[in-house]
C-alpha cells in the first residue's frame, strides 16, 4: 500500500505546476482584459476630448456669429445716410442740383442695379449628395478591387 502511494506521488505533478496551469490562463485573461480596458479608456478619452472640442467650437461659432452681427450693424451705422452725408460735406461735397447735372452718353454704362446679395433659386444648381462607393460596395468586390489596384497599378490606371 505504501508502495502504491509513493508511486502515485512520484507520478503526480508538483503543486506549483498545478497552480501554474490555472494561473497562466487567468493572467492571460487578465492581461487581455487590461488591454481591452486600456483601449476602451483611450477611445473614450479621445471621444470625450473631441466632444468637448465640438462643444467649444460650437460656442466659438455662436460667438463669431454674434460678432459678425455686431460688425454688420456697426457697418450699417458707418454707412448710414446721415454719416455718409456728414462725411461727404466734410470732404467738401454738396448735394447736386437739377440744373448742375451734365448728361453724356457713355457706351457700355449700366445703370445701378438693385442689390443681388445671394444666388437666386433659379440659378442655383442643387446636386444630389453622392455616396462614395465604399458605402454601397460589398466587401469582397471592394477587397478584390483594392488588391488588383496594388498588384496591377498600371492596369488600374489604364481603366
Amino acid at each position: 500500500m505504501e508502495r502504491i502511494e509513493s508511486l502515485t506521488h512520484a507520478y503526480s505533478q508538483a503543486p506549483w505546476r498545478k497552480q501554474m496551469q490555472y494561473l497562466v490562463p487567468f493572467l492571460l485573461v487578465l492581461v487581455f482584459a487590461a488591454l481591452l480596458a486600456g483601449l476602451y479608456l483611450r477611445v473614450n478619452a479621445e471621444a470625450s476630448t473631441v466632444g468637448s472640442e465640438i462643444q467649444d467650437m460650437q460656442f466659438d461659432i455662436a460667438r463669431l456669429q454674434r460678432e459678425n452681427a455686431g460688425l454688420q450693424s456697426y457697418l450699417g451705422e458707418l454707412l448710414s445716410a446721415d454719416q455718409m452725408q456728414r462725411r461727404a460735406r466734410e470732404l467738401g461735397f454738396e448735394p447736386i442740383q437739377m440744373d448742375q447735372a451734365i448728361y453724356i452718353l457713355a457706351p457700355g454704362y449700366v445703370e445701378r442695379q438693385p442689390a443681388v446679395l445671394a444666388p437666386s433659386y433659379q440659378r442655383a444648381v442643387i446636386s444630389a449628395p453622392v455616396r462614395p462607393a465604399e458605402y454601397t460596395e460589398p466587401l469582397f468586390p471592394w477587397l478584390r478591387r483594392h488588391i488588383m489596384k496594388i498588384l496591377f497599378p498600371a492596369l488600374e490606371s489604364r481603366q
Partner: protein
Amino acid sequence: MNRNNLWRYYILGGLLTLIPLVIAYQLVHIQLDEKNKVIFEDWHKGYTGQEEILEPARGLIMDRNGDILAANKVVYEVGVNLAQVENPHTIALTMNVVLGMDYTHALGIASVVGSEDKVYSPLIDFVSEEKITQLQVLVEQMTAEYGNGRGEDVPSLSGLTFRPHLARTYPEKSLASTVLGFVNQQGLGFYGVEEYYNTLLAGTSKKVLVYNDPNQAQELPDVPDGVSLVLTIDRSIQASMEELVDWATDEYGAESATIVVMDPQTGEILALATTPRMDLNEYWRSEEIFPDGVPFDRGVSQAYEPGSVFKVLTMLAALDSGVVTPETEFMDRGVIEVGGAIIYNWNRGGWGPQTMLGCMQHSLNVCLAWVATQLGAKDFYSYLEAFGIGRLSGVELASEVEGRLKVPGDADWYDADLGVNAFGQGVSATPIQMAAAVSAAANNGRMMQPHIVKSIINKGFQQDIEPRVAGIVVKPETAQALTDMLAVSLETESSDALVEGYRVAGKTGTAEIPTPLGYTSNDTNASFVGWGPVDDPKFLVYVWLEKPSASPWGSVVAAPVFREAVEQLVVLMNIPPDNIRRQLYGQ
C-alpha cells in the same frame, strides 16, 4: 481552516449578501415610489445637461441697393450666479451706478440664497457692450484689489455674470421708420414690415438639451437665421423725401405731410415718407410720439377724403367708357343738382362752356359731377372698385386700412353720393391706394400692385418678388389721353408743379374735412398727384398735406412740394431732361 474562526466568515458572507439585497430593495423602491421617481429624475436631468433655446438671428432688412436698414447687435443679460455671490451690496451698488438700476431691487435679487432650484437670477437685460466693458473692468479691478476675500466688509462682484444675445438695431435711426416698424424686447414686430413679416423675419427657435457629459456632446441642430428682406425703398430717395415732408410741414404749417413715390411701371414703392417719425432704437417712445389717433404710418393707415385728385379716376372712367372725350363740351353754370344734393364749384362760380380738358384744368366739381351722371352709378362704381378704392392695396405693411367706398345697395348710399364722389368727397382712401389707382393712368391703363418688398433672402438664396398687375383698368389710349390732358392743364395754368426740362402730368386736390356736423371746418386736406416724364413715366408722386395753415389750396401748398420732389428725384434717379433724353436715345 480553523473552525474557531468560521463565525467571522459567516458574518462577512451575511453582510455581503445583505448589502446587495438592500441595494436591490432600494432600487425597486425608488422605481415604484412616484415621489422618489420625480426627485431622482430631476437630479438626473440636472446632471445630464441643461435645456437651452437656440434663437435664430432675426433677418436683416435692406433697401433696394443693399444698404442695411435693420440689423442685429450684441447685447447682454446681466445676472448673478447665486451660489457665488459674496457681497450683494457691492453688486447692487454697481448696478445702480453703472446701469442706473434701482439699488433696492438689485439688492433683493442678489441677496437670494442659492439652492438646487435657484442657481441664477437675471438682474437686467439688453445692456450694451460698452456698459459690459465698464462692468468687466470693475470686476477685474475689484478682484485685483480685494482678491477672493469674503464677508460683508469686503467689496466683491463675485457671482456677476454676462450672457450675450442678439437684439434688433436700426443703423439709420428714424429713416424709413414708418415703413420698417420696430421689434420689442420680446422679439415681436410692431407696424410696418417688421410686423407684416414678423414670422419670417424671426425664424424658428429650437429647444435642445446640452449634455454635461462630453461623451454625449452632440452637434447642436442647425437653426437657420430668419429670412432677410430687400425692400423696394431707395434709401437716398427716402431720405430726400423725408427732408421734404419735414420742410413742407414747417413751411405750410401742416399738421402732417406724406409723400409716396412709386414706380408706376412696376408698382415698387421707392419712398414712403410721412410725419411724425421716430428713432426706432428708442421704440418705447412710440406711445409718446404717436398718441391715440395718430397713425404710425399715414401712408397706409389713414384714409381721408382726397378731394379733386380723385377727379383723375372719374375722368379716366368716363373717357374709357366713351361717354366723354377730351373735347366734349359742358356748359358750366356753377351749380348742379345730383340726387337732391346741390353741388358748386370750388369758387362758387360758373365757368361757361368748357371742354373736359378745361374741366380738369379748372378742377370743376360741377362738370365732374355731370360726368359721373353721364357714366351712371353702376359703371362709375365698377371703375372705382377696379381702381382698388375701398379695399386693401395689398402692400406688405401692417396696419393698412381699407378706406370707405359706399356703393349702390349699401344702406348709407344715396343718389347724391354719385355727384360728390366724382370729385373725391364722401369717399376715403389712403395715399397708397390713391397712388396705386392713379398708376393706371401713368402705365398705359395697367394698374400695378403696390409692393415694398423687392426680394426675399432665405437659406442663402435670393428670390425676387415679381411685379404684379393688379388689373388692366382702362385702355392704353384712355391713359394716354388723360396724361396729355393733365400735362396740358398744368402747362396752361403755369402750375407750381411744373418742372423745368421735364414734362409732367398731374392734378391738385383740395378737400374740406368732414366733421360730425358736415363740412363745417375751415381745415382742408391739400393733395397733388403727378407723374413723369409723360412719354416714359419713371415716377409717380403723391403728396398730401393735412390741414395746412399757410393756404388751404392744394395748388398753393401741395403742387410746389411735388415740384421739389421731382427736382430731387430726377437727380437721384438719373433721369435726364426730356430734350437731352431724346438726343441721347436718338444717338
